[in-house]
């Protein structure tokens, strides 16, 4: 039996090909399949200029990406360069898994002034830089042109929406007007049947902990912030402004029936409701423009409503980080520089998939989208330092997310007073530090 085992294992080993590593292979991991071909193009261009370096791109879905990355850190097999998310930055930085790029930047006299303001700062801590920004994202209102027209509204009516947590401003009026029950009565008409809504004026994803496309743009427009400064050890979930903002969202669904309740929304997300004509309007991130354009061409984009303190969108962005254990750091750094260079960023811009991090690529990207027939000005318009706020970057990101997600669900289910739920969650969050 031993021989049989041996035989089986050996024959299996024979079937396994021997991998020959070239002198300098830089392994690059990413999760976005939509962008993989674009970056493959960058890699080809890069290899043409650097014949001694081979770029090996591996793309795995988001669900597996982080587990895989963690395992590879443990086993010492991590990719030399990988696409990094702000959520994971604090722990990777604290555990010295990712390289501080400051000395490299200085040595190469790398010009970082071209990045949109705020992007590089997101990836910095105490003077260290842990990733070179590759793209940015903002949010905007996505609406169905056909439904807007049927309601007798024009796109210009959505250009300057206002919102406040008390009565919802013109945003709520438009939502009500866009809501239609099965008898054809609109949400702001007499005789509207709230128990039999055919199309909801607004549909939102189940509330996520960072609220990027669901609630954070509203809460932030009241002046509320997750934290008072980057890397803070104190969160502000107990702020009454947040409770008020969330109460408005809750009541929009549970009291006014202009939005599906959390029990009705399902777990498939707002896009599915837009695609299936159950929603007239939603709020979406710039990374989904391509999907909407393809799956629901009647969807167009308008700026998010302005709250008491104006428009505020979360300004998120990915970056390329270098693994501290990389055996080919020089080559990896060359590749990261190339990823941030005008050449590669222009390639990304022309693909019209995401917005590259360099300021002067915005125009190219907007044009690339225009050629596809999409107006993305609602996203670019708010990409200014006055109309954006940074995502909360602190330690214990995932643990906080878990606590906050449950709290938000409780709020939306109407289980308790929002103030109580949020104050309890805030205590739990702050006790982590």
């Amino acid at each position, binding site marked *: 039996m031993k021989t049989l*085992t041996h035989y*089986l294992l050996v024959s299996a080993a024979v079937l396994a090909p021997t991998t020959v590593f070239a002198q300098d292979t830089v392994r690059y991991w990413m999760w976005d399949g*939509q962008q993989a071909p674009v970056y493959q193009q960058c890699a080809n261009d890069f290899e043409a200029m650097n014949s001694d370096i081979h770029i090996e791109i591996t793309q795995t*879905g988001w669900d597996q990406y982080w587990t*895989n990355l963690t395992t590879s850190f443990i086993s010492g097999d991590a990719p030399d360069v990988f696409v990094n998310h702000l959520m994971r930055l604090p722990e990777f930085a604290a555990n010295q898994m990712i390289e501080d790029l400051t000395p490299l930047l200085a040595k190469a006299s790398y010009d970082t002034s071209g990045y949109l303001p705020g992007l590089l700062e997101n990836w910095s801590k105490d003077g260290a830089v842990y990733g070179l920004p590759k793209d940015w994202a903002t949010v905007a209102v996505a609406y169905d042109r056909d439904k807007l027209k049927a309601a007798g509204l024009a796109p210009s009516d959505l250009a300057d929406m206002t919102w406040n947590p008390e009565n919802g401003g013109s945003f709520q009026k438009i939502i009500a007007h866009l809501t239609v029950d099965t008898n054809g009565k609109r949400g702001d008409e007499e005789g509207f049947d709230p128990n039999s809504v055919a199309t909801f004026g607004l549909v939102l994803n189940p509330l996520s902990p960072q609220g990027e496309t669901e609630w954070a743009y509203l809460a932030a427009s009241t002046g509320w912030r997750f934290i008072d400064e980057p890397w803070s050890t104190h969160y502000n979930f107990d702020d009454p402004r947040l409770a008020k903002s969330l109460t408005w969202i809750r009541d929009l669904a549970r009291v006014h029936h202009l939005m599906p309740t959390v029990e009705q929304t399902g777990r*498939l997300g707002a896009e599915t409701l837009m695609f299936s004509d159950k929603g007239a309007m939603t709020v979406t991130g710039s*990374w989904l423009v391509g999907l909407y354009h393809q*799956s629901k061409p009647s969807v167009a984009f308008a700026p998010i409503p302005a709250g008491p303190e104006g428009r505020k969108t979360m300004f998120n962005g990915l970056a390329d980080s270098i693994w501290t254990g990389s055996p080919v750091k020089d080559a990896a750094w060359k590749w990261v520089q190339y990823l941030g260079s005008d050449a590669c960023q222009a390639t990304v811009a022309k693909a019209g998939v995401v917005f590259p991090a360099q300021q002067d690529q915005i125009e190219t990207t907007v044009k690339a989208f225009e050629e596809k027939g999409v107006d993305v000005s609602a996203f670019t318009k708010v990409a200014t330092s006055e109309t954006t706020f940074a995502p909360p970057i602190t330690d214990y990101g995932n643990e906080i997310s878990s606590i906050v997600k449950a709290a938000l669900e409780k709020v939306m289910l109407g289980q308790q007073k929002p103030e109580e739920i949020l104050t309890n969650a805030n205590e739990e969050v702050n006790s982590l530090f």
Partner: protein
Amino acid sequence: MSTKLNLPKLFGYAGLAVFGIISLLPIWMALKTAITMPTDVFSTANSLWVNNPVFGNFLRVLGLPSDVPPPANSGSPINFMIALRNSVIYTGLLVTGQLFFSSLAAYAFARLRFPGRDAIFYSFIAATMIPSIVLFIPNFILIRQLGLLNSFAGMVAPNILMLPFAVFFLRQFFLSTPKELEEAARLDGLSWFKVYWHIALPLQRGPLATLAILLSIQAWNDFFWPFLVGQKENVQVMAVALANYQSQTGQGQPDWTGLMAAVMLSIIPVLILLVFFGRRIVESLQTSGMK
């Protein structure tokens, strides 16, 4: 008499029909999704039929020219033949090994007497109770140290020598079979191995075939370990290739039509196996029933 017998029988058939429909309905929905235009998935999610079926999703996941444009959230096409070959090798190696080694151990646990036997047997069952989350990191490191990453050897290693489930299952069947035949063979001077191989094992053809089917389906669907250990295309199995179509981004939809088309394609080989093996089971049961 005959009417008295027929009523329960009728209920029986009705029950079978209901179970059959419930079993198949979601699979039909998956197939229906696979022949839907990507843009129509959600507007037709509440109906059993799609008005203008398309077959382009199958073509596009195979990387063939297709009239259905891949949605923006689609993964790269699957190299179906390579994934198929890899899955066949992986499943074949794993299930063959599991059946042989597990039945050998199960036989010993059921029939042979040796000190510590029951304790060892219970430690096999206990092995199913440790959450696999804590197993795979040490196993991954071990496989890596053995230099078996991206090889079939590394992919099958943790489970080929035994599967507690299979050991337990076969032991129960050996235990519930009369042992007179085996005792007689022993008295005739046959070695234990020959008794196991020529007498005990053939008596369990039915359970073995059932087990082979269940283990094959399981192995075919194995995802996490093959994903960690076998990422290179030349060893990447179907389930891992399929994951390409699941979640491309943290937020947003999977490529539903592509994923379902790929899933449907990937279960065809198992279906063939099932019908082929299934017939064998029936045959073996009929012959053993006649003895």
